[in-house]
């Protein structure tokens, strides 16, 4: 209030300064106003809800919770359940108290999930020990065929019929042989009776279908269409399989399987606890 603005204002180029304007205007300085110039509290007063211990669950509520847990446990023991399987580095890096790190875009979200394949096996824990028989194998793909009750096919879209019939297995050697008609040394097929029988059925069942499909494909090709692979989504899954899956880089089916590193251990040990998912010697997550 002391200096009538001139000097200070001039230094900054004329205008402004603490010049007192004509009375009655909003920017008139009111000495009675106390400007709160102290910094704001770091933790402003907020409403704290009463702690849960003040209102323990009633009998009925805790019974509801028990029922929920029971439903959950039962489903988790059913073959349709898929275990949580995150990418190893994402679990390691994420801080314990912050499991939901931000992710931007679908790609980052997808990167959080792990791909279960032979390549991702932890060599330090993967050697089977006695206690492994008690540990439930973590499943990333529901075991659709193991469900005790039959599916009601009419409620599923035709594109999924192959899957619920169990025809949607990984590309196995027997199937590949049946398709291509290539005669090959079938080491794996002979030594893995479970996978073998499955694949035989698979091959037999798909045989007439491939005929019909082949004819249709030819017709479609004649018309000039046939760009949609999904139409025959019933069984014919293998082509698109390879375009999209990033981990599915075992293309060794074609080269005769002379040296199959994945087979090396599998056939030596036993196929006892292998489910049909990796029966063919190739694990697709």
């Amino acid at each position, binding site marked *: 209030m002391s200096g009538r603005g001139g000097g200070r204002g001039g230094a900054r180029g004329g205008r402004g300064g603490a010049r007192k304007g004509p009375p009655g205007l909003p920017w008139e300085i009111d000495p009675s106003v106390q400007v709160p110039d102290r910094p704001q509290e770091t933790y402003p007063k907020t409403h704290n*809800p009463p702690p*849960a211990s003040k209102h323990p*669950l009633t009998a*009925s*509520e805790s*019974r*509801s*919770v*028990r*029922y*929920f*847990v*029971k*439903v959950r446990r039962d489903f988790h023991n059913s073959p*349709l359940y*898929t*275990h*949580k*399987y995150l990418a190893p580095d994402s679990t390691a890096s994420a801080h*314990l*108290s912050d*499991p939901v790190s931000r992710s931007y875009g*679908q*790609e980052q979200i*997808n990167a959080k*999930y792990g791909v279960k394949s032979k390549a991702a096996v932890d060599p330090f824990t993967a050697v089977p020990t006695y206690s492994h*028989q*008690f*540990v*439930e194998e973590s499943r*990333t*793909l*529901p075991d*659709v065929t193991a469900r*005790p*009750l*039959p*599916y009601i096919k*009419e*409620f*599923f*879209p*035709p*594109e*999924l019929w192959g*899957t*619920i019939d169990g025809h*949607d297995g*990984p590309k196995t050697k027997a199937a590949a042989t049946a398709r291509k008609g290539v005669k090959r040394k079938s080491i794996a097929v002979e030594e893995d009776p479970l996978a073998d029988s499955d694949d035989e059925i698979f091959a037999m069942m798909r045989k007439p279908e491939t005929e019909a499909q082949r004819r249709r494909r030819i017709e479609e090709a004649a018309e000039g269409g046939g760009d*949609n692979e*999904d*139409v025959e989504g019933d069984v014919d*899954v293998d082509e*698109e*399989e390879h375009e*999209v*899956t*990033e981990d*599915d880089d075992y293309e060794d089916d074609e080269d005769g399987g002379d040296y199959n590193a994945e087979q090396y251990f599998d056939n030596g040990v036993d196929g006892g606890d292998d489910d049909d998912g990796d029966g063919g010697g190739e694990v*697709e997550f």
Partner: protein
Amino acid sequence: MIVTKNAAELCVLLIGELYGQLPSRLFAVLLAKGRSTIKHLAQNTSMGPRMVRHGLVVLTQQNLIYHYTDPDTSITHFEANSEAAYNIVRHGKILNIIHRNYGEDSARLVHQVLNLGHVKISDLAKQYKTARQEPGTANGAANGISSDTADNDSDYEGEALDMVAQLIAVGILEPVNARTFQSPEDVRAGIEKDIMESYPSGVRGAKQKADFFQKSAEAWKEYQDESRELKRQLEGHYLFGPGAKRRKLANGSKTNGFKATNTHMLDEEKREVAVRVNYDKCLVELRNHRLTRYVADEIGEVTAQVYEAALSALAKNVNICQASEKSNEDTFVTRSVTTMEIFENLRPGLDVSSGIGKAPPTKINAKSAERIQANQPGHDAEGEGEDMSEDDDDDDDDDDIEMSNGVQSNGVHETETKITSGHNGSRETKVKFEENVPVAPTKADRLQQMRQHLLLLAESNRRFIRHCGMRDQGEWTVDFDSLMRTLKYSEIDTLIEQTFGKPGLRLTRILRAKGKLDDKTLPALALMKKADVHVKMVEMELAGFLEVQEVPRDNNRTASRTLFLWFFEEEKLLTRVTDNTYKSMVRHLQRLEVERRRKKNVLAVVERKDVQGMEEEKLRGDVYNEYREFLDIESKLLGQVDRLDDLVSVFQNY
């Protein structure tokens, strides 16, 4: 259900919690991207199509997605069903309420259905049998049934079939057909397409248009009736038939009348029908429970039990909580029940004489206590007053002690005052009533005392029940619409009071009563200082509880020449509060995940096959204690999620 970001996150977490990682990933993409084909899903999740297909099988089996196959290209489109996903959170409560209302075995059966998604009745019966025969679950307390019969095998299956029939009749289970898996929009579009075929040159002119709409409405109705067909057949036997009453009274505790020769109700053909849980009906049951809790808080435990009986008598006719386009109009009309029907639903062990104060007869204005409101408070109730004054029973307080007298006079009334739409069950109960009176005189006392409770409920300012007629000792109904609105307000009020204190609550209530109010009138009405009011209002506005509207008084739009109108927008607030609730549910589930990580080592041991089920014997002491700690935390978190869901239900679903 409006799928906000939080709601979507919640659905995904719930599916992950119950059904595993693969379905939850797919569901997240389906919610984010909308209708997708397998190819799109594979692209968006960067999974192989084989994996996508397997995940979709699980989702379809659990009724969590809709799918629609285009007949021309035969490409299938999948769509997320967020309602179904949200309902996962209610699984525990649904089972609990079924246990309460229909017995433990019914809950066990519904548990199977929930786990299996949808299932054929015959398969379900088999599954139930195997589940019961497992040594772990078949407890020795299989009451009555297994003890008096030699072979359990046929028994469990027959028992299961009977229970399924009963549950279909009450509506807890519903039959599934292929169209249930299409989204309602697709079904409607399909119907319209079919009808369009009869108009080869398109719909032209007003007449044709009206015709078209009528036809499509009819077809829509037909489609809905299709699924109720089985229920209708069965409910004749179970709900309104001769055996219905005893079964109702048995109510949980199974009597030997339960396994009567009812299995023929589901013949071979019907056993091939697939069923799933009907969440709409379950919500009705949950709403009844919730209302009972409110009454228990407000009036008392005994009255709440009476109210529960009244609600469950009413619930026979209520299949859905809110009338929507999904439901027909006629299914939603709330009907009235008579005192006798309520009495039949009353738990036998309940002591109705307690829980209510006694006042000398002279102190009670019987006329106003017995007042009949034939219409909802909103409607004008003309002409009912005469009926009321005609009633000779009103004069003494302990009216209707002479039962026969009451019945006769009521019988007269019944013919001349067609007050409410009675339904077919009422006449039959009247007959039953007359034969009951001479046999059990104590029953009459009990009935009378129960009636006092009902009158008490009717008198409450929340209008829990409405006394709407005189027939058969009085008819009662519940105006769910207005009742739920009051309850919504009371929940919001609690919330505001907790967050902003008493003054905030007072201001919002004034606004709710008066509508939009200007800056100057509000402090006067609230009898508060202007400065206080402003601070509070701004605080609430920032939190989104209030809205403000500016109305300039002239073209200058200066602040001093502008009116600021405060108002309270209910709809907006409700969606906002619901969304916040979803958010906190999400936080709870995430917290559960953190706790799981903390106790990772303990849980890994507990999940071992040789430990599961007998943790106490197998685990080392300190590990077991840690496991107990985790269970405690888990139940706290899940219990809190359940409570939050109660709030969501009140705001959105009931």
